[in-house]
């Protein structure tokens, strides 16, 4: 199979952010890398359906997102944090730094429902517009917006970000316990 160097280069350029998306989405580097690999293979196998000049990034993110979701259906229990592992790690009061520790953020991200997590990652981290994110997730723009908003609100609760003068274990614990009560 031969692909044009320009197409290959375009794919290569997307790999770092595609991988960051995958890792943030599934919270596990090995699984994420497998997901990226499978995405690239799918993309190569269907390279004719990619129109040169269109958004390679959005195309690859769409493939990865769909692969993740079909896998996620099979492994929901893992992804949904059934043992409250991530939630547990949030129960200690967050460090009072002005910067949110990535570790805490990762743990809080893991508590989010996956549709909110992916929406927030696409818009808030990967730099896609709401329109592009909606296309990637195959849903309405308004749906993406509301998922992003809910994700932000939830993260702020989990990270006790809202009222700096009221930082304390009580709030965090309450938020986490509520979050953990889903399953």
């Amino acid at each position, binding site marked *: 199979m031969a692909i044009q160097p320009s197409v290959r280069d375009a794919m290569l350029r997307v790999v*770092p952010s595609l991988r960051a998306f995958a890792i943030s989405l599934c919270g596990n580097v090995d699984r994420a890398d497998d997901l990226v690999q499978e995405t690239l293979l799918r993309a190569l196998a269907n390279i004719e359906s990619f129109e040169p000049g269109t958004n390679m990034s959005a195309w690859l993110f769409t493939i990865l997102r769909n692969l993740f979701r079909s896998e996620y259906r099979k492994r929901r229990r893992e992804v949904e944090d059934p043992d409250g592992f991530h939630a547990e790690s949030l129960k200690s009061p967050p460090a009072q730094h002005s910067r949110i520790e990535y570790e805490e953020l990762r743990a809080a991200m893991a508590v989010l429902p996956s549709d909110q997590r992916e929406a927030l990652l696409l818009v808030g981290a990967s730099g896609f517009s709401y329109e592009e994110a909606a296309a990637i997730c*195959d849903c309405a723009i308004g749906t993406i917006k509301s998922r992003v908003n809910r994700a932000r609100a939830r993260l702020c609760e989990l990270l006790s970000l809202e009222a700096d003068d009221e930082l304390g274990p009580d709030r965090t614990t309450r938020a986490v316990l509520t979050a953990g009560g889903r399953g």
Partner: protein
Amino acid sequence: MARERRQAGSVSGCESDDDLLSSLQKVRGKMQTSLEGHKPRGRLSREVQHKLGESLKGMFDEIVKQGVPDRFAKLLQRIDDPAADGAASDGGGVSPGDQAAGVTTEPSAESLDRRIIGSGDEGSN
């Protein structure tokens, strides 16, 4: 109500029972959020949003900075130019069969075998 749930499911491209389940979870999620409700949602201060956004990007960019792992560079290189692989392989020799399957020889996760080599999708054309 049931119809609403189905709609919630179909919005995100859901079709199966599994999806119905996940949309039920979404509905439950919503109810929980509203139970927490003594503080109005959607009024995160600009400052808080900014802080959250910066952290999110920072976390993301930390991974982006790692660049393209060898594994993926090789994968794309090999498909682009199969001949290059035999000459420059440091992965312990890649057989033509492996090339056809388009799979790296890295002994990473065992799940790789199951989900990628086993899937046969890429071998079908």
